[in-house]
C-alpha cells in the first residue's frame, strides 16, 4: 500500500494505521522505519509531531524498554529469592532448638541483702522520678482480695521464662521487703531464646513473704526449661487454684484492664494488689538489665542516680502505694514516706 509508504529521508512519522481496510506496513518496511534515526517533526510527508529532536531511534528505545522490563522483573525475582532464603534458613535452623536454661538456685545472700535493705532515703530520692515507667491501673469499688482466707492480699501471676516478669520481680521483691520478710528467695534467668534473653532475676516459686500487713501469693505458671520439639514452650510449674483463677480471669479482662484480654488469656506478668491496683506487663524495659548478673543489679539499687534503681524503685513505689492503700497506711514508716506519697499522688489514691 503506497499510501503507507513514507518519503525517503524525512524522518517523520506515519499516520496512525486504520485497524480495518486492509493493508499496512510490511515487517521489512517497519523494521527499516523503526531503525531510522529521528530527525524531528515537520519533515516532508510527515507533518505530525514527532519525538524530540535528537531522541533515540524507536528500535533502540524499544530494546532499552524491554531491557528495563527484564531488569525490573529480575529485581522482583531477586527480592522473592532473598526473602524465601531467609525463611528457609530460619526453618532449617529452627530444627536445632536451644534447650539451655538457667537453673533455679538459692539466691546469694548478698543479693537478698541488697534488695531487701534499700535505704529509705534512696526510695524517697527516686520517688516516681522515672517517667518511662508505666503506671498501673487503678480500680475502685472492688471487693478486697482474699487469699487463703486472708485479706488484704496481693497476687502475682507470671512465669520463670518470661523476661517481663524478670524485670517486674526486682521491683516486687524490693517493695514487698518493706512490708515483711522474705524467705527461700531463689534466683534464675528468663528464657535464653526469648526477647531480652537471660534477664537475671528471682523466682518466686517456693518463696514466701512473712508479713503482718498483707498476704502475698505468687504463681509461676511455667519454668524456664524449654520443651524439646516445641520452640517457645516451657514446662509447667504451678497452676493457680480455682479461686485464684477466678480473680485472674476477672481482673485481667478488658472490663477492668485497658486493652486487657477479651478471650480469657492472661499476659505475663499480672500483678493484682487487693483488686485495687493492677500491673499488666512489664512496668519498665527489661533491656536495662541486659547482660547484668544478679549481684550487678542488686548492687546498683542503693544508687538513686542509677537508671536501674530509678526504674525498679519507681515501680516499687507504685506497688508500695497500692499496698499502703490496702493496709490503710500500715506500716506508717513506709506509707508516709515521701516516695510512697508521691506515688500515691501520681495514681490518685490514698496511701495513708
Amino acid at each position, binding site marked *: 500500500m503506497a499510501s503507507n509508504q513514507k518519503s525517503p529521508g524525512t524522518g517523520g*512519522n506515519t499516520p496512525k494505521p486504520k485497524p480495518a481496510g*486492509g493493508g499496512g506496513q510490511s515487517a521489512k518496511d*517497519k523494521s527499516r522505519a*523503526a531503525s531510522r534515526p529521528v530527525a524531528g517533526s515537520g519533515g516532508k510527508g510527515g507533518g505530525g509531531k514527532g*519525538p524530540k529532536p535528537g531522541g533515540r531511534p524507536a528500535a533502540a528505545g524499544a530494546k*532499552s524498554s524491554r531491557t528495563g522490563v527484564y*531488569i525490573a522483573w529480575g529485581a522482583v525475582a531477586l527480592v522473592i529469592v532473598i526473602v524465601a532464603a531467609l525463611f528457609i534458613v530460619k526453618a532449617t535452623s529452627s530444627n536445632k532448638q536451644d534447650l539451655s536454661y538457667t537453673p533455679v538456685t538459692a539466691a546469694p545472700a548478698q543479693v537478698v541483702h541488697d534488695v531487701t535493705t534499700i535505704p529509705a532515703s534512696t526510695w524517697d530520692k527516686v520517688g516516681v522520678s522515672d517517667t518511662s515507667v508505666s503506671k498501673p491501673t487503678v480500680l475502685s469499688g472492688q471487693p478486697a482480695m482474699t487469699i487463703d482466707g486472708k485479706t488484704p492480699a496481693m497476687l502475682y501471676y507470671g512465669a520463670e521464662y518470661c523476661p517481663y516478669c524478670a524485670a517486674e520481680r526486682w521491683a516486687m521483691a524490693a517493695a514487698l521487703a518493706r512490708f515483711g520478710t522474705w524467705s527461700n528467695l531463689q534466683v534464675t534467668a528468663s528464657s535464653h531464646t*526469648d*526477647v531480652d534473653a537471660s534477664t537475671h532475676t528471682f523466682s518466686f516459686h517456693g518463696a514466701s513473704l512473712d508479713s503482718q500487713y498483707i498476704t502475698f501469693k505468687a504463681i509461676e505458671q511455667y519454668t524456664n526449661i524449654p520443651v524439646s520439639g516445641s520452640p517457645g514452650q516451657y514446662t509447667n510449674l504451678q497452676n493457680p487454684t480455682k479461686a485464684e483463677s477466678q480473680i485472674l480471669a476477672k481482673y485481667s479482662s478488658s472490663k477492668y484492664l485497658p486493652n486487657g484480654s477479651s478471650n480469657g488469656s492472661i499476659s505475663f506478668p499480672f500483678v493484682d494488689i487487693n483488686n485495687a491496683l493492677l500491673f499488666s506487663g512489664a512496668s519498665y524495659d527489661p533491656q536495662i538489665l541486659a547482660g547484668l548478673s544478679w549481684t550487678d543489679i542488686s548492687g546498683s539499687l542503693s544508687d538513686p542516680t542509677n537508671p536501674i534503681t530509678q526504674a525498679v524503685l519507681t515501680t516499687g513505689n507504685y506497688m508500695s502505694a497500692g499496698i499502703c492503700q490496702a493496709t490503710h497506711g500500715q506500716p506508717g514508716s513506709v506509707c508516709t514516706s515521701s516516695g510512697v506519697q508521691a506515688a500515691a499522688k501520681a495514681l490518685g489514691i490514698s496511701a495513708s
Partner: protein
Amino acid sequence: MTTLRWQPLTTLLLSVYGLGASIYLTITHFDAKALACVSNSTFNCEKVTQSPQSEIIGIPVAMLGLAFFVPMLVLCLPAMWRTSQRWVHLARLVLSITGVGMIIYLISAELFVIKAICLWCSSVHVVTFILFVIIATASPLVLAPGYGEPESEWEPDAAVPADGELS
C-alpha cells in the same frame, strides 16, 4: 504507546493503607498497650514493636515507615504518575527500592534476632513489596523518553503494527 491503567490507583490505595498502618504502629510503639494483635510463640507484635530492633539510631522503625509512606503516597498520586518530570518517576523507584531493602532487613531481624513475627508489620511489608513490584515493572515505561508529553495524532513508527505486507 502502552499506557498505565490500574497502577496509579492501586499504588495510591496501597500507600494509603501503608500510611495508616505506620501511624498505628507509631502510636503503639509509644503505647504498647494500644496494640491489638495475635500473641503466641510465633506471632507477637508487642515483642517486635518493643524490641531494640524497633529503633534505628534512636528513631522508631514505625516512624521510618511514616517517612516512607508520606512521600510514597504523594508520588503515587495519579497526577504524579502522569507527569513527564523524570525525577518524579526516579524518586518513586528509588523510594520503593529503599523500602524493599528495609523490609528485607526487618524480616531478618524478626526471624533471627527478635524471633517473633509482627502481623501488623508483615502487612506493611507485603504492601511495600507489592508497591515495589508495580513501580519497578512500570518504571521502564514511565522513565522512557517522551513519557507524559502531550499525545499527538502521530505516533512513532515503532508503534505501527505489522498487519500486512506493503504492495
